[in-house]
């Protein structure tokens, strides 16, 4: 499997990378860990004339937690997120999700920026970031802008990012309360048949907030307001969990593929969402 020929660029800073993107337009594409893009290029499903490798741009790396906000540089790898003591303290759901992505070798290379920018509905970080109500920072020729993860995904591989823009950072308020990332997959290294991220808080025996988002159950990640609302104000009893699951499943639109027909996925989704809510409640 040989990718089509391309010209390789390895700029030292963000300005250099934006310059190459501006010069070559949609014939240029950035390369992060390469573990989604290279397989696509080898299959000739992606044609790239100019590949812009971000590996030397130190500003795009690192995890910072300060004043209750978490900021993760786009080139931070899944391995680094799993190993981060700061993240384990501020947002343990990140590592819980990241260890369920692919396998160790992929996680050493795969970056959070690549995972959320890719636009593949199978990627786990987009749903997670919607659950956390994260904000993506995009930098382009005209400066920088922020887009909410919940507004970023339009359809498979179509996102709010413009061709000339680079996603530089992901940030969110350090979540409080209980959390869970549940994923059903056929084997290690497989994308989700269904996955669900939950963050919720409780006070005085009642659920005070709940965010629920799902992975690989539509052509984009799915954030369900209604599912969260079904839990808020309840004690998190079985009837409330059931109502939340029903609301969440109503929001998905799975398609049949080699992981099973749509009806099967709806069934699995219901189970996974229920488990995620129950585990998050048990930790709240």
């Amino acid at each position, binding site marked *: 499997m040989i990718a089509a020929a391309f*010209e390789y660029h390895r700029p030292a800073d963000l300005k250099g990378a934006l310059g190459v993107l501006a010069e070559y337009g949609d014939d240029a594409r950035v390369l992060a860990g390469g573990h989604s893009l290279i397989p696509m290029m*080898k299959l000739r499903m992606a044609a790239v004339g100019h590949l812009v490798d971000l590996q030397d741009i130190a500003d795009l790396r690192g995890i910072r937690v300060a004043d209750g906000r978490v900021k993760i540089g786009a080139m931070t790898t899944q391995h680094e997120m799993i190993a981060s003591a700061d993240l384990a303290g501020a947002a343990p759901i990140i590592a819980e999700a990241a260890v369920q992505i692919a396998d160790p070798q992929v996680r050493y290379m795969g970056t959070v920026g690549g995972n959320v920018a890719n636009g593949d509905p199978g990627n786990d970080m987009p749903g997670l970031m919607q659950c956390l109500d994260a904000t993506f920072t995009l930098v382009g020729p005209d400066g920088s802008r922020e887009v909410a993860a919940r507004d970023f995904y339009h359809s498979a591989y179509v996102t709010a990012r413009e061709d000339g823009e680079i996603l530089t950072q992901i940030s969110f308020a350090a979540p409080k309360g209980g959390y869970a990332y549940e994923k059903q997959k056929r084997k290690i290294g497989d994308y989700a048949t269904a996955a669900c991220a939950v963050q919720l808080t409780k006070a005085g025996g009642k659920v005070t907030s709940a965010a629920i988002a799902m992975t690989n159950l539509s052509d984009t990640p799915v954030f369900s307001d209604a599912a969260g609302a079904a839990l808020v104000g309840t004690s998190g009893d079985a009837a409330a969990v059931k109502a939340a699951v029903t609301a969440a499943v109503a929001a998905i639109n799975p398609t049949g593929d080699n992981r099973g027909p749509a009806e099967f996925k709806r069934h699995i989704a219901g189970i996974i969402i229920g488990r995620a809510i129950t585990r998050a409640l048990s930790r709240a």
Partner: protein
Amino acid sequence: MGKKMQIALTVNGEAHDLLAEPRELLIYVLRERLNLTGPHAGCETSHCGACTIEMNGKSVKSCTVFAAQANGATITTIEGLGSPDSLSVLQQSFREHHGLQCGYCTPGMITRAHRLLQENPDPTEEEVRFGISGNLCRCTGYQNIVKAILAAAATINGAKEAAE
């Protein structure tokens, strides 16, 4: 044919300079240009781990790295971990515990296990299984691979303690 570029690599402690197309896969640079045939091309689709090498301190599937990306990298392959006359502890342990049958997965398996033990010198059985989950073996059923890695960890830790 795409334009070739100069690529500098340090592999198993030796510096190499070579001309390659940016799109060449690192696995073939190692195997066909540097004659390091330890890392195997099993699936070429990032799934089997037979091509695992160590690059800049990470276990990496070298079928999923372009030659250009590796420019400047420090790489270790199975050839750099031990030799037939002087097996590494892990290699010796795979031999003693029958951690291989056909041997196709073994270079990747041992190279991965090497990094795993650098990061987690005293892993549990579960941690070993999770740590090698990117490496597939069609023959052994993994049982003896896991045994071999755990035994190697014990040997290395025992030697360390004895030295202290």
